[in-house]
């Protein structure tokens, strides 16, 4: 029972980080149909921005986090406008190659800026160290990540389900042509969605820095991991991405507890099986595959 709860809590924490980083990718994929291989660069950008704000300017964790997330969202707008928007509607291969190119540029620039070593984010005392949950002690940070991840999921669900923006977004995902003809400004919609996705990635990157430490090679190193969540979930679905993150996160964690020697194979096998059974993703629509 303790083992089961351990797997669930550690797995949930990992899953929430994956969810926060990848949900933006999934939505932009569903909306603009762009395979963005450079999405992880936003998580890295957020993480390094937070590290630098704290170490160079001496900011505390919370303001550094907020500024880093906003800055990343802001930086993503010109990137979407100037580069990414030019490949809307192009073949997937072109999109993948261009965004891999962007990821390389991001890696090279961070390498020039900060060198080859990696960085961690100094968490305040109330977020670090162990906390006793009765049956077992857990890293306090993990519990915080689970709470944050759930809060973000609910907020996003309400935002997309209830707000005017969300209604327009869903309309544009379902049928961009009609959405445009009824007066929805899709250009603005695309930019805003992209920026929100980048900001969420930054938040996930910072929250997840204990598990996925910041280093220059981050966008390429975790690219397959992030894309796996999106593919398994089904592109463009909030809930599908959530489920996929949960599935992959918990399976990965469970195999670490139960079959440590096969931990890395089991991640890819899960992905293989999931995609073989449901090529369009857990909650994806048939035509998207």
């Amino acid at each position, binding site marked *: 029972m303790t083992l089961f709860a351990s797997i669930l809590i550690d797995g949930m924490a990992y899953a929430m980080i994956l969810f926060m980083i990848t949900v933006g990718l999934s939505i932009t994929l569903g909306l603009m149909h762009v395979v963005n291989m450079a999405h992880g660069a936003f998580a890295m950008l957020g993480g390094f921005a937070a590290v630098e704000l704290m170490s160079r300017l001496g900011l505390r964790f919370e303001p550094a986090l907020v500024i880093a997330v906003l800055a990343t969202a802001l930086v993503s707008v010109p990137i979407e406008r100037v580069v990414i928007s030019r490949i809307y509607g192009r073949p997937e291969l072109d999109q993948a190659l261009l965004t891999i190119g962007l990821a390389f540029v991001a890696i090279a620039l961070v390498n020039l800026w900060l060198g080859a070593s990696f960085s961690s984010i100094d968490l305040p005392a109330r977020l670090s160290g162990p906390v006793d949950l009765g049956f077992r002690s857990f890293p306090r940070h993990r519990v915080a990540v689970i709470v944050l991840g759930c809060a973000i999921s609910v907020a996003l669900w309400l935002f997309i389900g209830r707000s005017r923006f969300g209604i327009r977004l869903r309309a544009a995902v379902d049928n961009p042509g009609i959405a445009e003809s009824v007066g929805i400004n899709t250009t603005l919609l695309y930019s805003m969605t992209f920026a929100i996705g980048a900001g969420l990635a930054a938040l996930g990157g910072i929250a997840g820095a204990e*598990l996925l430490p910041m280093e220059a090679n981050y966008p390429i190193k975790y690219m397959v991991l992030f894309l796996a969540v999106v593919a398994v979930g089904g592109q463009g679905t909030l809930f599908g991405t959530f489920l996929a993150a949960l599935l992959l996160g918990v399976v990965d*964690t469970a195999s670490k507890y139960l079959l440590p020697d096969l931990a*890395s194979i089991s991640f890819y096998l899960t992905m293989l099986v999931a995609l073989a059974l449901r090529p369009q993703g857990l909650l994806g629509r048939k035509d998207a595959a």
Partner: protein
Amino acid sequence: MKTCKRLAALAGVLLFGCAVARAEPVKVGIIGPFSGPFSSFGEGWKAAIDAYQKLHGKTAGGQDIELIFRDLTGPNPSEAKALAQELIIKNKVQYIGGVVFTPNAFAIAPVVEEAKIPTVIFNAATSSVLEKSKYFVRTSYTLPQITVPIARFMLDEGVRSVVTMVSDYAPGADAEASFVKTFEAGGGKVIEKVRVPLKTTDFGPFLQRVKGSAPQALFIFFPGGPPSYGVIKAYKDNDLRSTGIRLFGTSEADEKDLPAIGDAALGLESGMFYSGAHDSASNSEFVAALKAVAPAAVANATALEGFDGMAAIYHMIEATKGQRDPDAAMAAIRGFAWESPRGPVRIDPESRHIVQNVYIRKVEKDADGKLFHKEFKTYEQQPDFGRADPK
């Protein structure tokens, strides 16, 4: 008058000839990862090589030395071989240095063997590398060389039950095998051997598993960077120390990673051949020179590998007066002993591997609040225990 002119001409020719001979430097090729995910090796080596040249000049045996750097970003045998061929055939190097990864060392072995190019392996730490060419010499370490002393130390400390946890790749398997053998031979019991996938970043579950089996100590081996950070952090976050499980490591908590790992590293006990805080005149000289040539460089094992690799290459050049005589150079390096920043070292004449001290250290904070490895016990002149018959 005529004779005078002729003499003058002859003198001129001689002088010019000498100048030409002098102008042809001894070329040394350095192969390493200067870009990409492993570029911290290349950066550390480059800084240390500059530091060595600052201290010892850019000439040896009366000859100028020209260094040629070649980038090999990761384990890629065919590119390694092509680079070695290029250095030897096109650049006409007399010596090669560097090489981080074992498969790359395997790939260049036939090339340097055929061309008779003395090659100093700065890193590639699998024991069998040196058997692949008689022109290989290694100034780094092997995993058995440092894990055997650690196992002995743990036995001395009264540790009898242990869980081992290593990265699931060849060096991890090497570390595990030699540790387990020594530990069990000394009467200890290995409860479980865990191998962690190389790309793992979330170590929590693994550490919880260890906690469940409640050994007296946990022995780890992980490559530097995120894996080392992850495992040390998880050890602290999952509160293993308070349940009495001691942590013993090897090269984790490298000086370069220590600031990022932070206080979680406090109290980590480990065995290693070098620490930036090693207390000796030779080390102070090295650290000062390193700071002078590259202020951002860190005195760690990687930098030391580059520094001592250069020491070996300089010695061979001096012994042969810069002339191309590979067998004389190899004869000179066999048995060569010198005072390295890590302490006294020598090249074992038979295996061509370095014999060195292994220090047991503990991470502490100095007066300025900076983390460092405090050495408190020395296992002197350890050979490569990975060989069938270690000397």
